[in-house]
């Protein structure tokens, strides 16, 4: 009889634990859904575009800036062709981002 009682109590305990885990899982999944919605909200094109224009001074790419391979291959203009090994260039956008973010980061550290 005692064994039965013990079993019952253990079962209840396990059930409670399972329930707690489910609830925790639920909370986590709720949070995940919220975080995902938040990420999407923060990365909506409207906001990214405004930031890119203001902070990075970027403009939407124009079709004329793209050149299909055909044009490069057909062209005799040497400026299309890579002359020598391209010199290592500074990443302008990275520099701009760092410039925009650095003061804020420094402030956050303080």
């Amino acid at each position, binding site marked *: 009889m005692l064994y039965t009682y013990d079993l019952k109590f253990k079962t*209840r*305990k396990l059930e*409670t634990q399972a*329930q707690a885990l489910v609830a925790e899982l639920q909370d986590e*999944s709720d949070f995940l*859904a919220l975080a995902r919605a938040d990420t999407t909200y923060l990365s909506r094109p409207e906001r990214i575009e405004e930031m890119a224009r203001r902070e990075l001074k970027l403009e939407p790419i124009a*079709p004329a800036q*793209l*050149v299909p391979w055909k044009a490069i291959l057909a062209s005799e203009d040497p400026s299309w062709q890579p002359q020598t090994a391209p010199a290592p260039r500074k990443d302008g956008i990275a520099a701009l981002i760092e410039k925009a973010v650095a003061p804020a980061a420094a402030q956050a550290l303080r």
Partner: protein
Amino acid sequence: MRTLASAFQRLGGSPGQKGAARNARRAQVLLCLCFAAGFCAVSGRAIYYAAFPGEMPMLASAGAPPALAKSRPDIVDRNGRILATDIRVYWLAANPKEIPHADDAAEKLAALFPDLNQAALSRKFHDKASRFEWVKRGLVPGQAKAAHALGIPGLSVLATVGRVYPQGNDAAQILGLTNVDNEGMSGIEWYIDQKLAGQVAPASLAKRPIVKLSLDLGVQHVLAEELGHAMQRYQAAAALGLVLDVRNGEVLASVSLPDFDPNRREQAMDENRRNRIVTDVYELGSVFKTFTIAMALDQNVAGRYDRFDASPLRIGHFMVRDAHAVREPMSVEDIYVHSSNTGAARIAAAAGVARQQRFLESLGLFEKLETEAGTTPKPVFPAAWRPANAATIAYGHGIAVPPIVFASAMASIVNGGKRIKPAFLLSEGSADVAPERAIQPETSALMRELMRLVVQRGTGHRAAAAGLDIGGKTGTALKVKDGHYTHDVVNSFVAVLPVTDPKYLILVTLDEPKAETADKNEAGYNAAPTAGAIAQRIAPMLDVLPTPRFDETAATPYERGGSNSPQRAVLRKSPYETSGPDPRYSGYSQRESVPNSGYFGAYGR
């Protein structure tokens, strides 16, 4: 007790009177010890549970999380970016009977949520007959915690699921709305509930099925932004835009301004914010000439260089005139390129009423269209199709169609003649049924060439974009109000991108734009440049590369072919081409028609 005592006796206890008494006492002591041990065990357990409440076994149902009965699938765009999703929200409810200090509670709540009306709340809480009152719906977890922390008795926080649209206004009208119970009421949301209910039932908030739309969020945003600029610049009452994949009918973007923020449902109640692409019918004007010319070319009513009289035409008691009237007969090509109403009317007359009716019907222009974002009204066209109707319909007056129906008909003209059905959901694989054919592929190629000429030297030259092969057609329609044509116009431009390998159709319609300078309220002055600006921005997104053949803005070919090179054949003036008196239209002059410091230099940059 007796049995216990006799048990002791049998175990070898002392017999006799004295022994019996001792046995009884022993039995009593034993019993007491048993009870004491039992009580000790129980109190020990009680102390243990008091110290570690987490260990206490409970009935499993007590802590069960609330069911997610009303969760909905996520809606994502074709690249998987979320357009609509569900999050956990909380509803705040009150039991006025249990609130001891109604005014105090109302004041605290109003301080926490400034949008609540303190007086109304206080009135609610004073009503002691009521057992249940809503305080506020749709709280995010942080707000719910704060409300709980107020410690007002009688307030309860109910967990539920709420719909959010992280992209705001973009695509709002396509997605539609849900009600407070998270049931779809319109648009795709409604479609999901009605048609996909069984296929997409969510299991939990994190693991939910997704419904993938054909929309491209980037294109959608560009379209909305450029139309917004145009609406502001030309002071239009409304602006519509549609980007359609002509190969399979997938809608990449669909915008109708003014629009609304689906996170604020009350905005959507405004009738002016409806999705005009689907719900309204428009007389679209000269863009309809595309159908007239395509019919004439496809059914051998006229050839490309056949000439038609383009002088004012009298039908019954009204005159058909051209904005840029010419005396000489014009070729079919020029009628299209310079958008001659009289010429188009005469071509339709040559084709005949029955043929015109049959052709327009074969393009689906007489039927309503069911899309995932809603069903269009039936197009409005005359019941009795008299020659006068045929003449006006040839240039797009006297027939009103929903823009999405027009776009689908237009797509079959440019895509090689296949009929397509606009769809807002990604099509899963190919159905492998031979598509219905509206016109011959050769006619379609010819129509695209004509549309290219419209942009190169015709009414649509302001839609030209450097490096892009845009073809298009302008359409300026006078608006009917109270049964009369007014001076207000509906200006449209339909563009195909790129002309050589048609992939996308762009439709721009501005409702009642105002002229920037007097006498220039035609589609070529506002709708065309808007469409050009849109094409310029979406082409890189949609992998439409510039054609290396000819750079329009700079008027220099990428490939240095001579003036007789085959690359420039399209641009060469045909020996049959007729010219009008307007010097701008009188032949091939790229520099004049597309100035370098043109529209794009000044536009919003």
